[in-house]
């Protein structure tokens, strides 16, 4: 069986539209050989869950600049409710320290802050994909 490349949804939920981060990360993951599903900003949580299910992604990357990370716990809840708890969620952007702890507690796999390298992000997506697939093999 050939290994499929990781499939990752790169998105922004909530109200903010600053998308430099999500665009740069999406293009870097694509260049790293991954399959990237990209959405414009302003997505509803329900739309993200639906897209993740339809596209069967391994990882969801949520980019946040202006406090939209505060509704990521709602996304985690919605994913669980849809039975998609095996999809790993990464948050990237401006996340204050105190909020990072809350996000990890809500089930977020990893928070990338400004200054993170594209190579590290790609490596993490790869690692989380392998973990998910190992889980789903049985």
């Amino acid at each position, binding site marked *: 069986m050939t290994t499929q490349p990781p499939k990752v949804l790169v998105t922004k939920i*909530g*109200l*903010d*539209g*600053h*998308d*430099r981060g999500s*665009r*740069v990360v*999406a*293009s*870097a993951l*694509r260049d790293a050989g991954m399959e*990237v599903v*990209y959405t*414009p*900003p*302003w997505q509803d949580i329900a739309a993200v869950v639906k897209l993740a299910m339809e596209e069967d992604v391994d990882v969801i990357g949520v980019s946040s600049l*202006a*406090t*939209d990370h*505060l*509704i990521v716990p*709602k996304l985690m809840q919605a994913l669980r409710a849809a039975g998609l708890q095996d999809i790993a969620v990464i948050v990237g952007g*401006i996340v*204050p*320290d*105190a*909020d990072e702890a809350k996000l990890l507690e809500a089930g977020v796999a990893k928070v990338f*802050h*400004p*200054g993170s*390298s*594209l*190579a590290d992000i790609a490596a993490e997506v790869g690692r989380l994909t392998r973990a998910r697939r190992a889980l789903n093999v049985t």
Partner: protein
Amino acid sequence: MNKPVDAGTLAAQETADERWQREFAASARSDKPTRNRSGVEVKPLYTPQDWSGDYAAELGYPGQAPYTRGIYASMHRGRTWSQRQLIGLGTPADYNARLLEMIAQGTTAVSLIPCNSVFRGYDMDEVHAELLGTCGVVANTVEHMEECLAGVDLARTSCAMNDPSPFTLFALMLATAKRRGVDWRTISGTSNQSDYLSHYVANHMFFRIALPGARRVLSDHIEFCNRHVPNWNPMSVVGQHMQQAGATPAEAMAFTLSSAIQYAEDCRARGMQVDAFLPRFTFFFDISLSLFEEIAKFRAGRRIWARITRERFGARDPRSWRFKFHGQTSGVDLTRQQPLNNIARVTIQAMAGIFGGLQSLHTDAYDEALSCPTEFGARIAVNTQNILREEAHLTDVIDPLGGSYYVESLTDEMEQKILDVMAQVESAGGMYAAVEQGLVQKMIGASARGFQEQVESGEQTVVGVNAYQVEEGAGERQALPTPDPAKMQSHIAAFKAYKGARSQAAVQAAQGRLAAAAGDPQQNLFERVVEAAEAGCTHGEICATLRRELGFGQPLVMV
């Protein structure tokens, strides 16, 4: 005394220039070409051979076309720059308390940053409550605007509203002024970032109506202000978003000037006289850490605009030729790592803007890469301006770098880069068409990626990120100020009560007139927005009507 040591008789025949070249080559760190962020190759030394321009035609005096040395005769020797720090958080009462505090500390100009929900065209009861007031003030009605501006003399205070099309906040402010009996003709300020194209291609914050509708509302807004609020600047053309999104300084200046041409053409097509609207055009730019490049960018931009307004538009009034701009230090250049280093970065960026001849400045707080700024961070940002203005002798001489072989040569080279990008946009059919085609978005995306790769490869040093890293605790990082949830809950409850208590007939009628005007190009749509605000319609209701009539503005995003 030291005598220069030569390599014998051969050296005696060298010119000073040749000798310098030889000695430079022997000791230079690298022979790789050095390029600035815009891709201009920068030489190690500039001499009189590098600039032989015509002083009168290309530089001239401050306050005289082509304004390379500044748009006013006295520049910072007359008025320095306006200190226009952005503020906005929480409820209208929170905002007003902070505003009055800043006015007491010497701030002379109001700036109002609304909550992201307002930016996106929604009322507070239409969005996730967690997000309310975290990045700006939650103001949806004329009552909220009255409370925001309580104690502010609207006839004497310049107000800048970060207010996307259809300019509802400004409409709410006009309604407030009318209630207070303030003559609209005395009101001054700016519809910050009314440039919908910059939002469509870059940060997508202010963009909420499909492109053709946004285009019409802006022209109507400019025309309305020309007639009724003549001291208001309805047009703020923005390079800041595009540079923050990744455009190089030259690209950002080029796109901004191309947008300004587009907006001026649109006004002209509506039959407005150029000298009626061009004096009310203002510009807003990002200032990166690339000090000399930014200075050259601003000097070149002024010169190009002076030529465009006279040669392309035939403007006769010198006020139409002047390139007035607000600068904001670049947040993208700030780092989360060792955040106090950002104070040094902001200082350098602010200096670039000051030497570049800006009229108004916002300095970022050092903690903006961590969260919305704390009050502590905001105070340092204000004092950075105070130090630069009053301690550092930066304002003693007008355009102090004018005549520098390097800066003049770089100004010319940046001008050429800018004109090249503008020609690309022009051949795509102008800025509106170039944006519709995705040309601008693609260029910005490619430049953003290119810069990130330079950081990753170490070609571009970022202290604390790819060099000079240290282990950090969380101690240096302050907590994010958050709005009080209880106050926000009662704000929402009061808002719902307000909606129930107002005259539903007046609201319905105003909404009906607004919808009808959207379908009738002969009417001024913004005039109907103002009427709706006066009739008690909420911000979200006005936006919803226009979204329905003019289409929702989903941006074309290119990856």
